[in-house]
């Protein structure tokens, strides 16, 4: 039975989703505008909060300011470095731990003790450990994303159907073949869950580290704005952090869809419907 669905066309549910999204954001900005313009004060004080218009004007000005752009680049560089290092260590480690019970038994207790410590609690230790400020910020970003990626990779290996492993072995797969053909692709869905969560935590950790120990970076910019009583800059920094976080999650999702073509919902694949 075959049924072709138009793949790139707009479906009714898509249109509905997008228009509701626009309505939701518009209401949010409008409420913000009203609360700040009329200096709403009911225990929560909007007196010092800048209006959306003021933040927008500040954003336009900042877009042309090379120092502001440098802050953004700095944060992106740190995220990329910390996150990539975390993925490069956590994924192979998780795969090998998932495969070999002895390694898992040795490493897992340490992981379980360190995992609940929030990245921000690592700041003083990190400053002591690393010779430069820059390294300690990247280390904290690394730690934030490391544990979610590791734990999800481990779950990924555990979720692989043992029959598939046996099938590969009976086809002549050696240990390296098993890693390439079975353990890695089989855990990819969980690995990407880990990467998405890890990216979120990486931003949380980075901003915390930049606010406390940093020079430069969007977290430092936001904290400095508070110290210098630049209220519009605070909101600009916050919105930017939100936007960059959203963007990096989207990049990972896109990457996931590209490397896992089999995991696309069946109806969006060419020529099949079950």
């Amino acid at each position, binding site marked *: 039975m075959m049924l072709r669905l138009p793949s790139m066309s707009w479906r009714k549910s898509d249109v509905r989703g997008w228009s509701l999204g626009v309505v939701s954001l518009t209401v949010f900005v409008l409420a913000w505008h009203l609360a700040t313009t009329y200096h709403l004060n009911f225990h929560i004080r909007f007196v010092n909060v800048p209006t959306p218009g003021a933040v927008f004007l500040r954003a336009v000005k900042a877009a042309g300011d090379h120092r502001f752009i440098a802050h953004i680049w700095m944060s992106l560089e740190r995220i990329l470095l910390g996150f990539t290092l975390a993925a490069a260590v956590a994924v192979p480690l998780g795969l090998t731990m998932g495969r070999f019970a002895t390694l898992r038994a040795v490493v897992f207790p340490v992981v379980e003790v360190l995992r609940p410590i929030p990245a921000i609690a690592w700041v003083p230790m990190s400053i002591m450990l690393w010779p430069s400020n820059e390294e300690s910020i990247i280390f904290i970003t690394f730690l934030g994303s490391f544990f979610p990626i590791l734990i999800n990779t481990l779950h990924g290996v555990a979720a692989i159907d043992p029959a598939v492993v*046996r*099938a*590969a072995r*009976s086809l*002549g797969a050696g240990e390296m073949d098993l890693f390439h053909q079975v353990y890695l*692709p*089989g855990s990819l869905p969980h690995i990407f869950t880990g990467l998405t969560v890890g990216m979120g935590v990486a931003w949380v950790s980075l901003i915390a580290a930049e606010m406390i120990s940093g020079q430069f970076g969007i977290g430092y910019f936001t904290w400095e704005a508070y110290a210098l009583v630049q209220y519009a800059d605070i909101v600009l920094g916050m919105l930017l952090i939100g936007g960059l976080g959203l963007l990096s999650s989207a990049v990972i999702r896109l990457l996931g869809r590209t490397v896992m*073509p*089999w995991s696309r919902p069946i109806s969006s694949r060419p020529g099949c419907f*079950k």
Partner: protein
Amino acid sequence: MTAIASIRAPLVRTSHGRIDIDSLSINFGNHQAIADFSLHVEPGEFVCLLGPSGCGKSTVLNGIAGFVTPNSGSILVDDETVTKPGPDRGMVFQQHSLLPWKTVLENVALGPRMRGVSKAEARLVAREYLDLVGLGAWASHYPAALSGGMAQRVGIARALVNHPKILLMDEPFGALDAQTRIIMQENLLKLWGLTGNTVLFVTHDIDEALFLADRVIVISAAPGQVLLDLKNDLPRPRPQDIFAHPSFADYKRECLRLIRQESGKAFDFANGTGI
């Protein structure tokens, strides 16, 4: 389901080996799955292992495949002791166990690729065997798009592409609906006519065993032992109405009697033992 290709495909080869199992015992912890089990299978023979659930028939198969190590006794394939899994003993599982992240063609090409065959050549032979099971048109799909019967056909092609000496089938049609099962059985016999493998087929379905096999081995409740080694002389090629053949009823009666007895032991409620 389309018919199996009636002409012999150029890349399909005949390959078969003999199996010698002598006083085999396999334990799982304290549970004795197989005890003092002996079986000799001639090259090219189609043998069905028939027995109640939990009797250890799959354990015998896993032993030959190299997934479990015997506690005592020996398993020889062409006079060589089985030590580990290998493509010379093709395995078809009850659940299809295709790699979900590989296309149908890539799944079939996996065995040749592992043996170091070039990608282009592996795809070529894989294509040949997919055509043989009537699924050439599905080569670029992922397994999730296949029905249960189609997935099992891919599983069979994936095992046969390596020209195995022995084809081990662990209740391969057990999860399929009755109609699909019958079509699969008929097509398996046609395929076997082309490839000539030694086949060891585990089932708990008496009709299936009698329809397919040259020999039906009835196995006792655990620990599994051979209760009956039945030579099935029903004529080949077997027509769909082979069930009406007078010998069929005799064979079935004999198997059924033994299976009833054994299932009775396994489910002995009165004595509070068994499952």
